[in-house]
């Protein structure tokens, strides 16, 4: 394959590289530079201010409040999603154990997987707007159900005490199905004999999950953890559309802070980029840390 390969390499590679460098690489590089200026965006002036933006950031209570919410999301969303995902994936893969007949999948497993995956293909916008209606304090699905049972209902997204948890629930709801499918695919690679041996040994389902399935799926769980951690540090669209950070900043997240700083009433692009840079390093360290901490010996099926 030697003759005349250069014309092809040129025509095939140059346009995508140009497009990519122009719209993806250059903005990322610029972001770091803008974060060290006092640029207000639409004005031509951008004075270098060194690390002043980062200093302001350090004393910005709104940013700290948003960060606190992100940290709570980071602690809860991955754990809840992974536990539920593993639980349902196990049920689907092995729910149908039949005594000595061995380990079989539950009936209708394919249908369950199809349905669970629905939220994953829907736009976050639709999920956010739909759940906003589900949480509606008057005619929402939840409120009217509670009223129907003769109970009183909170105002969900309207109350600073409950709003954050309502958003968190939607995050878990929209993610679980994807991880059921992901874990299910990993489980189908585990040799069936292992489970049958465990079953014959009389291990309970919970023991099986904790001592056999989880260690065997560790790699996949770790990947899931990183995805979900990145998701929990973002959470921007869902929050912006459902509550826009309110009420009283109870659901604020860093993404919303950044967006408001850049495109809100004041266009502090320099400061917004500084928030972006901090988010970038946070995301990166969380990803690296979770890969480090989770490192274990690889298991290969003989």
């Amino acid at each position, binding site marked *: *394959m030697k003759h*005349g*390969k250069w014309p*092809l*390499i040129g025509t*095939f*590679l140059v346009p*995508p*590289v140009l*497009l*990519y460098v122009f*719209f*993806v690489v*250059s903005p*990322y590089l*610029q*972001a770091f530079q*803008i974060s060290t200026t006092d640029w207000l965006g639409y004005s031509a002036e951008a004075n270098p201010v060194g690390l002043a933006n980062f200093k302001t950031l350090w004393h910005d209570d709104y940013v700290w409040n948003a960060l606190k919410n992100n940290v709570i999301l980071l602690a809860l969303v991955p754990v809840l999603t992974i536990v539920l995902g593993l*639980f349902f994936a196990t*049920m*689907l893969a092995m729910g149908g154990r039949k*005594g000595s007949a061995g380990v079989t999948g539950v009936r209708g497993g394919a249908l369950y997987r199809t*349905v*669970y995956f*629905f*939220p994953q*293909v*829907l*736009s*976050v*916008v*639709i999920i956010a*707007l*739909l759940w*906003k*209606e589900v949480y509606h304090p008057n*005619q929402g*699905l939840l409120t*009217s*159900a509670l009223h129907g049972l003769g109970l009183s209902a909170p105002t969900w997204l309207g109350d600073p005490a409950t709003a954050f948890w309502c958003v968190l629930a939607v995050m878990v709801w929209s993610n*679980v*199905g*994807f991880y059921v*499918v*992901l874990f299910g695919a990993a489980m189908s690679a585990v040799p069936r004999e292992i489970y049958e041996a465990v079953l*014959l*040994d009389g*291990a309970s389902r919970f023991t099986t999950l904790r*001592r*056999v399935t989880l260690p065997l799926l560790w790699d996949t769980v770790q990947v899931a953890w990183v995805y979900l951690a990145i998701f929990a540090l973002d959470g*921007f669209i869902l929050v912006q559309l459902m509550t826009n950070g309110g009420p009283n900043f109870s659901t604020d997240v860093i993404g919303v802070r950044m967006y408001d700083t*850049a*495109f809100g009433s004041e266009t502090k*692009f320099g400061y917004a*980029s500084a928030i*972006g840079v901090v*988010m*970038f390093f946070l995301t*990166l360290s969380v*990803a690296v840390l979770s890969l480090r901490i989770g490192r274990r010996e690889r298991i290969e099926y003989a």
Partner: protein
Amino acid sequence: MTTVDKPTAPLVVGRDRPVRRELGVANTLSHGFLLLWGLLTVLPLLWMFISSFKTNGEILADPWGLPGALHLDNWARAWTSAHIGRYFLNSLVVVAGSVSLTMLMGATAAYVFARYEFRGRQVVYYLFVGGLMFPVFLALVPLFFVVRNVGLFNTWLGLILVYAAYSLPFTVFFLTAFFRTLPTSVAEAALVDGCGHFRLFFRVMLPMARPGLISVAIFNFLSHWNQFLLPQVLLQGDESKWMLAQGLFALSVSQGYAGDYARLFAGLSIAVLPVLAVYVAFQRQVQAGLTAGQLK
């Protein structure tokens, strides 16, 4: 491998019965949990569809009830008065453009990475794949100006180019791996027979790569169709050019004043249907594509 802590009990045939009964209970239990989550997933969507056929009065009086009659006028109102129809078509145009461009550029670049040796190949490849790891929000502010400075702000072409650029990392990553799996013998035979490099790509390699191309195209279709952040930043002006997601958001905001819930539910349903249709038709590819491509 982990060890199982309990000593192995010999399997006694007579024990089979109680074991089976216990498992029967467990089966019912597991079905119960599975069913519960299934309901939890479907219920909000079902509620949305059903509410889209009710009158506003019915929605307010009885959120759980069924519609007295099928009020298709809600859908008509959403399609025309809320301009969901226009936004829908706008999205269709942009997504058709961006998915085609992504696939063309992604496939050609991936093919070069997978099949040709040249200096700096690794560097360029990692430049592309590195884009998988960076969160979009960091680029958001400068991207706004990059797009504005070349006169593409508030244009569909701008969106198409940006969607394609941001989809390249995954597309290239996935397709490079895919092209590598294709047999080299076919390509070599074709070259020996005097087939040119370009013809080889379009006539031999692309048709062979069809399954991989379809998976990635579906993945890109869903992610472009569901895009919200980029149009919100890059298409701020002229309402008539908006994407579906922006239109739905505006509809949700205006609904707060107008109180036309039925129209909102109809608008949401219109947006959900094509995505669900694509999903149900291509389930396996969608699940494979998304589980491989979640690194976005």
